[in-house]
């Protein structure tokens, strides 16, 4: 246990599972497994080792025992089974949850290790934004005492920038990174709040700034209504015309066919004449 507690912070969830498997002992093959595999194997192993079903059968097969005691024994065995299942599920979920948190934590820390300067700068930017908010006395500002924290964070950021990332490795870098991470989280939270306030203020300002917006809106509505009415009138008129066309359709059909036929003949003749003229033209040009 002491060995594990003293291990480096950067160990992965899988590495912890490997060590935990070994630390529990009695099931040495678990030492090489990942978290999910560990639980699956452990459950199978335990099911075999505990052997509650066999125990139940053994009690039931003990015919010389007092029936009341036999029944009570079976009841306890079933109760033990339920307890193991429920408690096991809880512990398994709990381990997964912790593992996920640990991985997330390690990823964040790794990001901080890789980019301490950028992270500190970002924290400072958020805090400067909050300071501005305070100066303007806008709602959603950070609480009392924030200014000193802002100053501290800004100093830290400046120190990191001045010193350079090379000098921020090792234990001290981790410690300062943790401080920066915490401040960054807080700053992000405040920053988001401030952004939301700004957005609201922008919208509000837009509404207030446009004093005759409402009357314009009413005018627009009237215009649109007029357009709608006009469109309806036009449609109605078109519908009437269409009705007339339908009524007269039969008459057009009766006399129209012959007329179209005559028109087609005239058109064909006209085209033939044009073709002849073109041919003459071409011939004439060729003889020149």
């Amino acid at each position, binding site marked *: *246990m002491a060995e*594990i*507690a*003293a*291990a480096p*912070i950067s*160990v992965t*969830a899988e590495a*912890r*599972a490997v*060590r*935990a*498997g070994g*630390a*529990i002992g*009695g*099931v040495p093959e678990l030492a090489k497994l990942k978290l999910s595999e*560990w639980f699956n194997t*452990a459950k199978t192993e*335990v099911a075999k*080792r*505990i*052997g*509650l079903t066999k*125990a139940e059968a*053994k*009690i039931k097969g*003990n*015919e*010389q*025992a*007092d029936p*009341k*005691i*036999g029944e*009570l*024994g079976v*009841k*306890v*065995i079933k*109760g*033990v089974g339920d*307890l*193991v299942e429920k*408690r*096991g599920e809880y*512990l*398994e979920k*709990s*381990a997964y949850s*912790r*593992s996920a*948190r*640990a991985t997330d*934590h390690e990823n964040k820390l790794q990001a901080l290790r890789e980019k301490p300067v950028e992270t500190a700068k970002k924290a400072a930017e958020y805090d400067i934004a909050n300071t501005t908010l305070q100066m303007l006395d806008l709602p959603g500002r950070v609480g009392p005492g924030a200014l000193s924290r802002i100053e501290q964070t800004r100093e830290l950021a400046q120190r990191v920038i001045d010193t350079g990332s090379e000098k921020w490795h090792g234990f001290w870098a981790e410690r300062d990174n943790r401080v920066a991470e915490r401040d960054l989280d807080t700053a992000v939270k405040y920053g988001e709040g401030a952004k939301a306030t700004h957005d609201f203020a922008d919208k509000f300002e837009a509404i207030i700034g446009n004093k005759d917006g409402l009357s314009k809106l009413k005018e627009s509505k009237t215009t649109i209504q007029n357009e709608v009415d006009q469109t309806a009138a036009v449609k109605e008129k078109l519908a009437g015309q269409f009705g007339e066309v339908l009524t007269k359709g039969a008459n057009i059909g009766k006399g129209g066919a012959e007329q179209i036929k005559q028109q087609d003949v005239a058109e064909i003749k006209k085209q033939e004449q044009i073709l002849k003229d073109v041919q003459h033209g071409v011939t004439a040009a060729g003889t020149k």
Partner: protein
Amino acid sequence: MNLTDTLKNISNVVENDLNLTEELREDIINLIAEVNVDPTPANLRVLSTVLEKLKDSTKYLSALKTFSSLESTNLST
């Protein structure tokens, strides 16, 4: 230590085991009490089987708990 004392001791241990549900604790204590009244070899075998499985399951849950605790320990370092 005679049988009655032994059973009484086991009963006390079970009563103080907070890892067990209240219902389970009561059932086990009742079983011990019944066996104490009529401690025939067959009845004692039933009790023995139950206690053995109780011990095995407790070991299993302790192992899982240890594993979960290890995750916490690492998180807090």
